[in-house]
């Protein structure tokens, strides 16, 4: 996977969570990537992190580090709070 593109995506997510303050934004970015990214995308992003990719923003870097440590935060917004197995009526249709 093209590292630059993945880093761009991670930064973009981080930038939109910035208003939550640093710690909040790091958790929200990690949560988002955990719930929506395919494993090879995550792996390629970790590889970029390890190689010290210059373009990573502080928040995106914090989020990737958190995930790489194996820490997946609890849902940080309703967007990542999904219906339970037997739950009806909710939707994130798109």
């Amino acid at each position, binding site marked *: 996977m093209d590292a630059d593109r993945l880093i761009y995506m991670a930064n973009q997510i981080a930038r939109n969570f910035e208003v939550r303050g640093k710690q909040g934004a790091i958790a929200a970015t990690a949560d988002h990537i955990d719930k929506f990214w*395919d494993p090879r995308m995550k792996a390629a992003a970790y590889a970029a992190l390890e190689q010290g990719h210059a373009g990573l923003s502080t928040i995106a870097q914090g989020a990737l580090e958190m995930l790489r440590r194996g820490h997946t935060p609890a849902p940080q917004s*309703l967007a990542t709070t*999904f219906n339970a197995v037997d739950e009806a009526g909710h939707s994130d249709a*798109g």
Partner: protein
Amino acid sequence: MTYERQTDFGTPEALSDTFVTLTIDGREVTVPAGTSVMRAAAECGGAIPKLCATDNVKAFGSCRLCLVEIEGRKGTPASCTTPAEQGMEVSTQTPRLEKLRRGVMELYISDHPLDCLTCSANNDCELQDQAAAVGLRDVRYGYEGADHLGTQTDTSNPYFDFDPSKCIVCSRCVRACDEVQGTLALTIDGRGFASMVSAGQQGDDFLSSECVSCGACVQACPTATLQEKSVKAIGKPERAVVTTCAYCGVGCTFRAEMRGEQLVRMVPWKDGKANRGHSCVKGRFAWGYANHRDRITKPMIRDKIDEPWREVSWDEALTFTASRLNAIKTQYGARALGGITSSRCTNEETFLVQKLVRAGFGSNNVDTCARVCHSPTGYGLKTTFGTSAGTQDFDSVMQADVILVIGANPTDAHPVFASRMKRRLRQGAKLIVIDPRRIDLVRSPHIEAAHHLALQPGTNVAVLTAMAHVIVTEGLADEVFVRERCDWQEFEEWARFVAEERHSPEVLEAVTRVPAGEMRAAARLYATGGNGAIYYGLGVTEHSQGSSTVMAIANLAMATGNVGRRGVGVNPLRGQNNVQGACDMGSSPHELSGYRHISDGDTRALFEADWGVTLDEEPGLRIPNMLDAALDGSFRALYVQGEDILQSDPNTHHVAAGLAAMECVIVHDLFLNETANYAHVFLPGSTFLEKDGTFTNAERRIQLVRKVMEPANGMGDWEVTQALANAMGLQWHYTHPAQIMDEIARLTPSFAGVSFERLEAEGSLQWPVNAQFPDGAPVMHVDGFASGKGKFVVTDYVPTDEKTGPRYPLLLTTGRILSQYNVGAQTRRTENVVWHEEDVLEIHPSDAENRGLKSGDWVRLASRTGETTLRADVTDRVAPGVVYTTFHHPATQANVVTTEYSDWATNCPEYKVTAVQVMASNGPSEWQESYASWSEKSRRIVPAEPAE
């Protein structure tokens, strides 16, 4: 099977909670107050003769055929214009009435050509029926009087003719165009005998007039004056099957009226709750693509994409495909395979494709076209309301007082809903439009937007934040609602943020280019004008901050208390007919049907037990990620059902490179679309007329699609997917889509109560349908938000990285028009092309002048990703600095110039903002020429050897 016209009650249904009881010809009948005597009689089975009345327009009282006698009243009032009253005693059949009616009828008939036997409406003509009903046998005036027999038939419209010689000037067509469609294209010119229906100004015919070819007038016409050409060509229908339109998310229902195996016409079904008897040009008329000569009905394969296609048997095609897929899976692992479900196919078909990907391929790499349209709606409304479904049904708009349309062009993209909205606007509701372009709604007959905020593309979040600033700082928020229904602390945090001076309309004017005064006035109107309803479309979602914009909209609605009752709400206008359904069915790579995340072990266990497989617990790839992964070799096989990603997805060069890098691309479609140029397998698809199933429209309304003819390719699409699954070694044994729906209901709590039997009996159901909502839910969040409390989310405006500069000084935004649908695969193969032969570039006169351009000139449109050429249309619909085009034609391929920038949360492409340069050109670009020749080469077909 016999053919019957739909019942016509003469006047529209009255919506009242009080009832009156009256007696008609000795029979007692109870109806809602406001019902006409004519309708009351029809409801108890005693139809009164009529000509100028029909139940989708207001009564007019001109023909005087519907006279009745009412006990205690003088004269013979017209029953269509007389409201039923408590205790009224009505007689509809008396010798006096019969005589009067015969006299009226005689006058009509004496002016009418008497060629019934050769008329194409013979036996399907109300004039004929009514003449018989009043017992007219002879005409005392003779037939020599003046008539209009010499007048020319207007055949300019591709779908219907207008033969004035048969017109009885009942004005039903004029009223249908005014009241039902809201286009006001028709008038009655002249007076008395000289009066004639006419389209547009003098010299106009139907095609050159304002007419949008919705067909409402044709449906309303009681004679053969306005009639479908297909009825003339094929003959009168013999049977009718109710089904659902396969074009847009309005989900109109139709009677497919058939003669033998041939479709004669589509007539909107009056009992359809989404469309209430109306339609647009696409659904009613543009179905000719089903039999177009380009349609491919035989499977085809090839080893490499530069080879010609080879027609083969189904067996050979499926074996070839399965062995390729299995080989790739063995060599590269399950995550190298994926599929794209179609928002044009049925729920059942979509469900099967994602099941094939998850249970057969063994990955979660499944996505759908919602990725490129409403995925930000999913994210944004889920985050704020706890559920992303549109909050209202369509009928709700009739109770709105202020309608805010943002980034949507309903008259072109959701025409039948737009007609309903326009009716409400003509009744006096106020309109605010937020759009860089002056869409038709801004100014149309009897409608004028109170405010049109012509913002700079890409600044939606800034505009909505500025509106929120006004609402909060001027004390217009609905605190009572917020305290009761939302999280107060989150509201306060949000209110503090938007109240900051940097978010005032005055400061943000520099970014949005919307005059601060206008912005303030619009915000005040939305907050204080009564029921405020927001309708939005892809102009909201297709941005790098699409998801943020959706959340900003939800914030505004919550802050002003405009959620949870009729007449208000937040309503995404969805593009394709079944985009809601495709999402509900688990077409996203991170979730199973009913929006349950793939990482949830209990949810997976439910499916694993039912399907007898183990599911991958990690989210899969989204469409753009699949293309990226293809380029690095980790993604190699793609099954695409009913989508044309090469034409519809952004940055065509990138899509083409991704597809070309794959080893097995399977296109399952009606036509050799653009994506098929890169495919190894072509599996022919079936049209919506050829299969059973269900679609779910933008109101969450599940409706049946019924098979009206045999599939030309031999199989419904669900059968093709099943055959492919079985060729890969799965053991599926569905014999009817109803069984697939049973499986969906079994595995999806929000569909628990849905079945074909119930849909058959009840017409439609709006999910959720379960123990809590046994009959479905038309309006959401009535007693509190799905998530408990509504959540305010601070949405910080982050400008897009796509910036204009000296090389690319203009902003391109893209959209669609009424007569064409999406990539145009269907509509380009119908007569609809008379309205839109090619994509054109709208450019403001000042930008055109700077470049020495005039309308009709060829121009080169270039961005940093690519360039194309098309013709210019110089117009002030677009603001200076902004250009606009559509993406319906592959020859233009507007997406050659769009970029890979996308929504931060969902990767929905930023179609609406691309920095471009426009300059004069003398013809197609090099890319267009080389693509055209590649495309031609790629479409060569070697027919199967005929069997000896």
